[in-house]
C-alpha cells in the first residue's frame, strides 16, 4: 500500500486520537476494577460513551468531504480507541468460565442494545437543530 502525504497526516491524526482514547479507557479501567462476578462498569461506560460520540461525529461530519483531519482524529482515533471489542469479549468469556451465565447474557444483551440506541441518539442529537430550523 502506497501512502501519500495526506495519508500520513491522517494517520498522525488517528494516532493522536488513539493516544487520548487509550489513556481515557485504561484510566477508567484502573479506577473502577471489577471481578468476573461483577458488572464491568469501566468497559460498559467507555463503550456507551464512544457509541454516542461516534454517532454524533458521524452525523456531524457526514456532509463534509474527508479532507479535514478532525474526521479521522475524532472518529477512528478517539471514538474507535476509547471503545473496545476485545476487552468486552474477554469479560464475557470470564463470566461464562466462572459460571455467571445470567450476568454474561445481561452484559452482552445490554451492551449491544444500549450501544445501538446510543449510536442512533448521537446521530439524532446532531440532526435535530437542522431539522428544527
Amino acid at each position: 500500500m502506497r501512502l501519500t502525504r495526506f495519508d500520513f497526516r491522517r494517520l498522525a491524526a488517528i494516532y493522536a486520537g488513539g493516544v487520548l482514547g487509550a489513556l481515557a479507557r485504561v484510566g477508567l479501567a484502573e479506577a473502577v476494577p471489577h471481578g468476573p462476578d461483577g458488572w464491568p462498569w469501566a468497559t460498559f461506560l467507555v463503550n456507551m460513551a464512544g457509541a454516542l460520540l461516534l454517532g454524533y461525529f458521524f452525523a456531524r461530519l457526514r456532509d463534509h468531504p474527508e479532507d479535514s483531519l478532525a474526521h479521522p482524529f475524532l472518529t477512528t482515533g478517539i471514538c474507535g480507541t476509547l471503545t473496545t471489542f476485545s476487552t468486552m469479549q474477554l469479560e464475557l468469556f470470564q463470566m461464562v468460565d466462572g459460571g455467571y451465565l445470567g450476568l454474561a447474557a445481561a452484559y452482552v444483551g445490554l451492551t449491544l442494545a444500549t450501544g445501538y440506541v446510543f449510536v442512533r441518539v448521537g446521530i439524532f442529537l446532531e440532526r435535530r437543530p437542522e431539522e428544527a430550523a
Partner: protein
Amino acid sequence: MSALAWVAVGLLGGAAAAARFLVDTAIAARTGHPFPHGILAVNICGALALGLVAGVALEGEALVIVAGGCIGSFTTFSTWILDSHRLAQAGHAHLVWLNLGLSLLAGFAAVAVGHWLGGVL
C-alpha cells in the same frame, strides 16, 4: 501504575489505532463490499490476542500495557455498532444480524482458543 507505564499505554494506543485504520482500509479496498470485513478481522484478531494474553497470565503493569493499551485500542466497539447501523440504513438487514452475530460468536471463540493456547504455552 508508574508514569512510564502510562506513557507506554498512550504511545501503544495511538499505534494500535493507526494499525486498525491501515488493516481496515487495506481489507475494505480488496473486498469492495458493504459488509465491514475489515473491522471484523481486526476485532477477531484482537480477541484472539487478548485471550492469549489472559491465558499466559500476564500480570501487573505489563498486563495493563499490552491488554489495555495495545490490544484494547486495536479493537473497537463503536465502529462495529455504527457500521451495523449503516448497514441497516442501507437496507441490508440480514447483514446487520450477520455482522453482530458473527462478530460475537467468532470473538468469543477467538478468546477461548487464545486462552487455551496461552495456557498450553
